[in-house]
């Protein structure tokens, strides 16, 4: 995660702010709802961040305190344009939420009890569920390469979704298992590191 890109992008900080403002404006249903949008805008469309790098950034964003969406915007902004990029992306991510809540507090409108608003959000959350699921499947295709990663992914879903184990505990478990494999299974370590090198040297997909 170096703070430099191959080619300078004009007005990068302004673009970072604008992109995250647009994403922040439509992040309904929690921080993870941001991921399909980030994937589309930052990875697929603008190609600012590679898909594998994005997964690592999300891993970091979840392991750090604070809202995952805010953490992700800071990491991506920093990756592309250093500290000022981090600030630009974070402001873009936070300001839509800030203005909308301020507007609601100022008008003291009980908009959440309006039936049309409720129906609208029934639809929005159904779509967000589908989009997050698609993102998870897409990322699983990149990440799950062998039985160990398959077991880890399935175990994480079962522990968090059905046994309500705290996300941080599961992340810690994944990191410790990775660490253990490094010390106990050198052959796998060589294999995985070799694969990572090949991916970094290969053409950008």
């Amino acid at each position, binding site marked *: 995660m170096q703070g430099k890109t191959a080619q300078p992008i004009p007005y990068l900080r302004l673009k970072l702010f604008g992109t995250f403002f647009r994403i922040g404006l*439509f992040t*309904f249903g929690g921080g993870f709802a941001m991921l399909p949008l980030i994937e589309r805008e930052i990875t697929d469309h603008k190609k600012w961040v590679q898909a594998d790098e994005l997964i690592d950034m999300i891993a970091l964003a979840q392991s750090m305190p604070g809202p995952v969406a805010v953490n992700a915007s800071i990491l991506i902004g920093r990756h592309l344009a250093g500290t000022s990029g981090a600030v630009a992306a974070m402001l873009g991510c936070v300001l839509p939420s800030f203005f909308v809540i301020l507007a609601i507090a100022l008008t003291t409108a009980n908009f959440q009890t309006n039936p049309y608003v409720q129906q609208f959000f029934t639809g929005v959350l159904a779509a967000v569920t589908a989009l997050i699921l698609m993102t998870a499947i897409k990322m699983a295709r990149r990440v799950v390469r062998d039985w160990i990663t398959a077991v880890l992914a399935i175990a994480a879903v079962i522990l968090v*979704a059905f046994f309500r184990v705290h996300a941080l505990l599961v*992340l810690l478990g994944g990191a410790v298992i990775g660490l253990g494999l490094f010390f106990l299974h050198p052959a796998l370590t060589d294999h995985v590191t070799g694969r990572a090198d090949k991916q970094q040297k290969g053409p950008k997909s």
Partner: protein
Amino acid sequence: MSLLFELFYSFFRIGLFSFGGGYAMIPLIQSEILHHGWLTADQFADIVAVAEMTPGPIAVNSATYVGYMTAGVVGSMVATAGVTLPSLLLILLVAGFVSRYQKHPLYTMVFYGLRPVVVGLIASAAVFIGKTALVHLVENQSLRDWFATLFRKPLDAIQPAALLIFAATLVVHHKFKLHPLILIMGAGLAGILLQFIF
């Protein structure tokens, strides 16, 4: 002045000590706010409901709201800055450290273990949102009771309009690669229109 400082400090602590994002942060936010008497329990329940229907992380939503209710627009700015500042400072501190060891096999292996867990967490988020968005779950209802309802009175167990939109989003997203924003807005409109049918 001391109120502004209190707001900043309180939300700074929330930003610093809440891990896992979203709903995992609610208990800490709630105890901080109720402890100070900034909102009543009912008001806090309201803000959680509003947060679901407004964009952005719930921590930011509640910081802005509480800040405004206690100290006006300046208060909302101070509280929002407080809740996001720990993220910014910590990440700027840690990210440089992390990227220095990015090529080390130890790093590769830690992330080899982390990445599938992250994918699992994302899938779990879909399960959590789907649980409120697609089905009718009575409070503390067990999975078995829910299945029992599903077979006896299917319409009491699911939200047909939402399930239809869910399925349509999967198909349209897969086939036409539309921008998620278009899908989200379209799904919202479909939610309003489908109420006339179901």
